[in-house]
């Protein structure tokens, strides 16, 4: 964890942390888009299975947010 870039004097792992957090933010946005997509799909077609599918999308979004928070804490 002590690798430091010679020119900037910044830790490589700090840069890696920023990149990972940025990627996780993008992923959370993607998870939100998936949730919205599920809503559009269930509006288009109702088959009586909307509840579990919405739950799936919400769980996915929550999972992505949890990982983001975890990364923020432990990295």
């Amino acid at each position, binding site marked *: *964890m002590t690798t430091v870039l010679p020119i900037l004097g910044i830790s490589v*792992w700090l840069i*890696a942390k920023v990149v*990972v957090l940025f*990627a*996780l933010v993008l*992923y959370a946005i*993607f*998870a939100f*888009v*998936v949730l919205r*997509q*599920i809503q*559009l*799909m269930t*509006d*288009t*077609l*109702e*088959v*009586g*299975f909307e509840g579990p*599918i919405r739950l*799936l*999308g919400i769980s*996915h979004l929550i*999972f*992505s947010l949890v*990982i983001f928070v*975890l*990364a923020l804490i*432990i*990295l």
Partner: protein
Amino acid sequence: MPDIFISDPKKEKQIAKEHSPKKKVAPKTKKTKKHKRPRYNLEKKAQGKLSSFSYLPKKVNFETREKDEKIILLLRRHPLTNISWIMVGLLMAAAPALLNIFSFPSFLPNEFGLIAVLGWYLITIAFLIENFLTWFFNVNIITDERIIDIDFYNLIYKQVSDTNIDKIQDVTYTMGGVARTLFNYGDVFVQTAAEVPNFDFLGVPKPDKVAKILQDLRVEEEIEKIEGRVR
């Protein structure tokens, strides 16, 4: 002296009955036989929410459905067509464990390794969800009036096309290959005279039954036209 002018009430009633104007009986006419939809013995088979072939589904509704429109058939791709992405998903899920054997992420600090694995599982879950949603919501619906093709191409693009049953010109179905013959699924191609010239039901179960149902619906529509019962 007997009173001859008092009439017997029973006789009076009988006479009144005989002379009363008869009720007009409507002339018996031949009842026009209403065309009955043939039964296919499919009602009890595979009516689950994840079924890829639902005949007369009860709880199905779609955006552009009209009030008195009856859904005859709801079709999805056969579950076997999902094997490829399910296998890929399982491999993706097993990948971190497999890579751990070869100690691949050993150059990463522990915290980064954990986040990398969790991130990988996120991507795997997204892959599985996307494929499931694509399978589940890309459906073909046959109602008593039209056929509807609902396609979701990616996250933000959907296409819903429909055509009236009476615009169907030709129905072709194909079944080829070992898996398709064994598990009885194939493609149904519907040519129409509408703006969308082709409706392709790809990889649907029982393509022969689908073609038969479409043919019967066309006949029914023709009869409705002749009888003047067109909606």
